[in-house]
């Protein structure tokens, strides 16, 4: 079932939680609602579910208007951040709840319910815990039970409100994969709310970035990461290095720092946004950039070495005046950067925001360089 959100507005007292939100959620896709807290993502999810009503606007499932329909009649599965399991019921009774709640005519016989419950227990790999009470389960187990409970009645739409928010990192990762498989197997139309950009980019087919009650951008994860349309989306999707300054005669200047911006006609104020992987570090300035930085910290955790640097003789914007650059372990081993060393940032690809123009211009120095150069695009 596809979901259409049309012009939804919602106000809580003086706070405008949703301001004219319109969205198309395609059938069978896993969509992430991503945004900082207070961006209205949970409110939107609850309005789609029918747990909250909008002040104005319309919600339709596959073209059918469900705005006035009660939650219980919308036939959706809803998963809560804190599981909301019924604590006086066993795991099996919890999972059976939706089936037990069906009107007598549609309700399967006892044996049928039992069969379905044991199938679901098998699916969440917890058949041995059927007779346990929720208090005896771990967080990850509880969330799996909550998921099984929400899909027991075979809803076409699955809505998840920060489903992994209360779990620790490892369990979260396992459950994410498991949810992805579940989704691919059953072809629900799923929407999940998250404030974790990594989770959104990794798990979903489509990401809806929200901020202050509005939709900022909707796109596939890869596209979204590669082509953010606004400063907000850029900032929100991971670490970003920014230099702002004046564009004059084909280069962006601030203090003693400068970068050429080939192909940009604009003159005046501009900001250049660079992702950590779009910057290299060199020991001397290069032809197209002079961005001196001093190393503040080197962190070896993970598959990449993260180097934090402070601008030398100019100012960065945001992120506590710190730039972050990722280098490979091989580079680290050959160069041995240490705290206090001076380095020069060499941008390879950057995104220039000019004036109030929301859409950034992409600048690619590697292509602009005259010398032939092999680039691996992964």
């Amino acid at each position: 079932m596809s979901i259409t959100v049309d012009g939804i507005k919602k106000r809580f007292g003086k706070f405008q939680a949703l301001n004219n939100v319109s969205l198309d959620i395609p059938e069978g896709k896993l969509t992430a609602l991503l945004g900082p807290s207070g961006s209205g993502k949970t409110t939107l999810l609850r309005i789609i579910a029918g747990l909250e009503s909008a002040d104005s606007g319309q919600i339709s499932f596959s073209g059918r208007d469900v705005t006035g329909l009660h939650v219980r009649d919308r036939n959706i599965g809803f998963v809560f951040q804190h599981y909301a399991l019924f604590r006086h019921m066993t795991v099996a009774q919890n999972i059976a709840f939706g089936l037990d709640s069906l009107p007598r005519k549609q309700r399967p016989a006892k044996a049928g319910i039992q069969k379905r419950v044991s199938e679901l227990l098998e699916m969440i790999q917890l058949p041995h815990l059927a007779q346990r009470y929720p208090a005896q389960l771990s967080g990850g187990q509880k969330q799996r039970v909550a998921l099984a409970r929400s899909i027991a009645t075979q809803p076409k739409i699955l809505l998840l409100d920060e489903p992994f928010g209360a779990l620790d990192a490892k369990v979260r990762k396992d459950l994410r994969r498991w949810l992805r498989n579940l989704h691919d197997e059953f072809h629900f139309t799923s929407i999940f709310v998250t404030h974790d950009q990594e989770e959104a980019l990794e798990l979903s087919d489509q990401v809806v970035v929200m901020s202050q009650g509005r939709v900022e951008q909707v796109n596939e994860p890869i596209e979204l990461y590669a082509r953010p349309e606004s400063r907000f989306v850029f900032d929100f999707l991971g670490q970003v290095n920014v230099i702002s300054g004046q564009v004059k005669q084909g280069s962006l200047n601030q203090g003693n720092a400068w970068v050429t911006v080939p192909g940009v006609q604009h003159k005046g104020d501009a900001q250049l946004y660079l992702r950590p992987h779009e910057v290299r570090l060199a020991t001397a300035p290069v032809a197209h950039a002079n961005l001196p930085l001093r190393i503040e910290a080197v962190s070896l955790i993970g598959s990449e070495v993260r180097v934090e640097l402070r601008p030398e003789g100019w100012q960065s914007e945001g992120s506590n005046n710190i730039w972050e650059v990722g280098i490979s372990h091989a580079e680290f081993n050959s160069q041995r950067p240490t705290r206090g060393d001076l380095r020069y940032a060499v941008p390879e690809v950057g995104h220039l925001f000019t004036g109030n123009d929301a859409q950034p211009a992409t600048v690619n120095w590697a292509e602009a360089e005259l010398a032939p150069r092999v680039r691996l695009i992964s």
Partner: protein
Amino acid sequence: MSTANQASAAKSQRWPLTKGRSKRVLPGFGLSLGISLFFISLVLLLPLTGLVIEVSAMSLSEFWFVITDPRVVASYKVTALAALAASLFNGAFGLLLAWVLVRYEFPGKRLIDAVVDLPFALPTAVAGITLATLFAANGWYGQFLTKLGIEVAFTPVGIVVAMVFTSLPFVVRTVQPVLEELAPEDEEAAVSLGASDAHVFRRVIFPALWPALVTGVALSFTRSLGEFGAVIFIAGNMPYISEVTSLMIFIRLQEYDYAAASAIASVILLASLVLLFAITVWQARYLKRLEGR
């Protein structure tokens, strides 16, 4: 260090209190527990011991004779039945009142919340006299009820009314906090699974409430068993029909028969204790399951 020394060191660590080297983080355990126990002994246990001593002066047959006097036995029945009726009524009405106070916002809510405690604040004799006046054949309520052929004042029904009045706060005040703590998510989850309102109440809300409800009803029941002030003014106090047990104790006292008064009192005391103890044990077991121990 020898193993014997290690063992004794381990032992002294395990029982720090016995060595006078308390390792507790929260201070004041010894002092606060001591004062509490002393006070409980002074105001609760000592008078109860006096009661037992008074009773123990009687022989077993004397004791049996006093407590099985037909008029006293009739009073047990009247008291127990009236208390049962009153506490069940309070169970239903108290739950409704707590529900309204927790679930909805309306003008005057704070006022109603405060008024619930009135029976605690009001001297029970005042309540009894007021109720008797209201329900008397020519009283505000009584005049209408008489037309319908219902007599309340000076009948066992009057006893129930008095008991309802004095013990209502017990149910409201035990159920209210549990209702407040109920996570709205549980209900939302149930509704999103397609459950009807009745089904949600029966399967999700009520199971969470009923330990508190049972406690409230039990407290209300035991309070009613011993109710005196409010009841005697409205009961009419006709032997075998509308005499409550606490009145029987009072009558024995007026006859200076302290032993007999104590004997009857010990019956009420025992009944209340057994009931409260049973409820506590049952509830502990039920809650244990919910908390997963």
